[in-house]
């Protein structure tokens, strides 16, 4: 049963991501991206990361994707976009990486490193919202604050860039 779910999610993720890159119309790409985000969330659930799955749906599918769709529609993009002339480069890079991916899959028996014994994180209740929140506001307090600064920069930066005329630059 578990395997069935995994293969369903994995297959849809792979197909949807290829469609994002391959489709000509940006709106179709954005919708494929939406499908991909939902199925990645499904994968998180199968890994017992329920909180992350919820965040994935709310932030990625709910907020980021809406932003993309909004911009695509606002700019009313044409769809006659051809592919880049970097095909050969991309082909070589893709092939090398694909071979590596196959190599990785074949390493089935690869020993998983034992969990470090001295972790002070609670192991039970992994993925549980409470444990995650606990770590976020204690062990990971510093990165949390830095992330808040990043969001501040993003917010103010977006406003500065997109605002019509500020300062004397247009004068």
């Amino acid at each position, binding site marked *: 049963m578990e395997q069935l779910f995994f293969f369903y999610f994995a297959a849809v993720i792979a197909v949807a991501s290829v469609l994002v890159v391959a489709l000509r119309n940006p709106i179709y790409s954005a919708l494929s991206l939406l499908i991909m985000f939902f199925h990645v969330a499904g994968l998180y659930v199968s890994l017992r990361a329920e909180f992350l799955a919820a965040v994935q749906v709310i932030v990625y599918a709910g907020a980021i994707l809406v932003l993309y769709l909004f911009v695509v529609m606002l700019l009313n993009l044409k769809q006659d976009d051809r592919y880049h002339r970097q095909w050969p480069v991309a082909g070589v890079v893709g092939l090398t990486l694909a071979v590596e991916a196959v190599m990785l899959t074949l390493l089935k028996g690869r020993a998983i490193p034992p969990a470090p014994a001295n972790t002070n994180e609670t192991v039970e209740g992994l993925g549980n919202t409470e444990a995650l929140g606990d770590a976020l506001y204690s*062990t990971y307090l510093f990165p949390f604050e*830095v992330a808040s600064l990043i969001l501040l*920069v993003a917010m103010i930066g977006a406003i500065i860039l997109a605002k019509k005329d500020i300062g004397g630059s247009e004068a």
Partner: protein
Amino acid sequence: MTSYGADLLVILPELIVVGAACLLLVLEPLTPPSRKELLAWLSLGALALCIGLTGGQISVLNLRVSAFSDLVVVDGYARFWKLLLYGVTGLTILMSLPYLKAERLQLGEYYGFILLALSGMMVMVSGADLLTIYLGTELMSLSLYVMAGLKRSSPRSLEASAKYFVLGAFSSGLLLYGISLLYGVAGGTKLGAVAAAIGSRGFDDPLLLIATILLAAGFGFKLAVVPFHMWTPDVYQGAPTSVTAFMAVASKAASFAAFLRVFVEGLGGLKADWSNLFLLLCLVTLILGNLVAIVQTNIKRMLAYSSIAHAGYALIGLVAAGRGMGESGGASGLASVMLYLALYAFMTLGAFAVIGMFRKGGLEGEDIEDFAGLAKRQPLAAFLMLVFMVSLAGIPPTAGFIGKFYVFMAAVEAGLAWLAVVALIFAAISAYYYMRVVMVMYMREPDPSAGEVPQLVASPALTVVLACAVAGVILFGLFPNPLVSLALQSVLPLK
């Protein structure tokens, strides 16, 4: 309930910088347009406070303090880079005062963003965990993407911002994927955990190899090393000149600092593998950076290629460190990289300060030809530019020579004499394009049909910047010992 008093004290400089940035952003709408300079002075005050704080710890330089469950570390290495970054940021702010006025970009947010970028850099140099380093990189990069596009009336500036953004986002994707693989291998994101896992589990894990390559590529974009350099000339040319100077010096220094820490503290066990990889990158960077710089006619573009080439010289030190680690050789290699970037900061800031205020009827004179006959019109300006160019070319008795000397010495000590010779040849080639600027200034007459001749528009702030830069270039060229011993003392502890 744990209290974070002691932890907060460790990151006090970061708090001051962030606090000043937030204060600036709040005060910005309250200050009338003619008073925006007050905001710049406020940020300089915050920087002075930070210099005092970190500089005050110089007597306990190598005291290693960790905070926030070991995610942040302040050691001699971090203090060295922070002091450098404060200085560079301060000079950039001073340089921006007249520049923004001339470009009619009276934006208070500009100074806020410089400080936010600086706080990102400080997090990068203090990060003891891959997550912290990644977040610091993102904070720095996002601020810089916005700053590159601030000159919104100019399509070139917007285009620079767009290109910088696409390649920056791409490179952080690579970096992050490398980090995720490293987490899988090591079971943790702390650099110490990574080093321990590599030590206990050997190196033949293909995941580890891919992770190393991805990390190298991700950092390669930030450092502008060939073949990850293609954004550099466009972005350096298009961005406002003061922002270009900040990117070329501060962002490069911070990226190098984080890069060295990750590869030495975290991946030190793989030094035999990565030193070969970086040897290759370093060679192509030296070749391409120096050769393409020759054909440039725009001085900002030329300096972009020169900055690529300089990243190549600095990489020599890392290669030497990788080869010589374990014995005594490694420390001098790393110290030479730190020294090189510190000295590079002075000459590059100086050169960009001159270019930013070198104006032709309100516009920047960016073509090398615009400098024709400058020696007759403004002998002092021409002489300053001469000093910076000579130093960039690495000719004694300037700082540039000292930087190259120590890097080459480190290479020779690590048994890479041939690399030092190759680099020396390319340094000689680089003298050609730097000296061409000097030739144009001293030997050429301006084209009489060109109309308005470009002038260096002097102002008190610019004078201070140029004086600091020239003093740095000449004093450290003649008396490098204090800086050399500082770099040697604050070098990362090698394993």
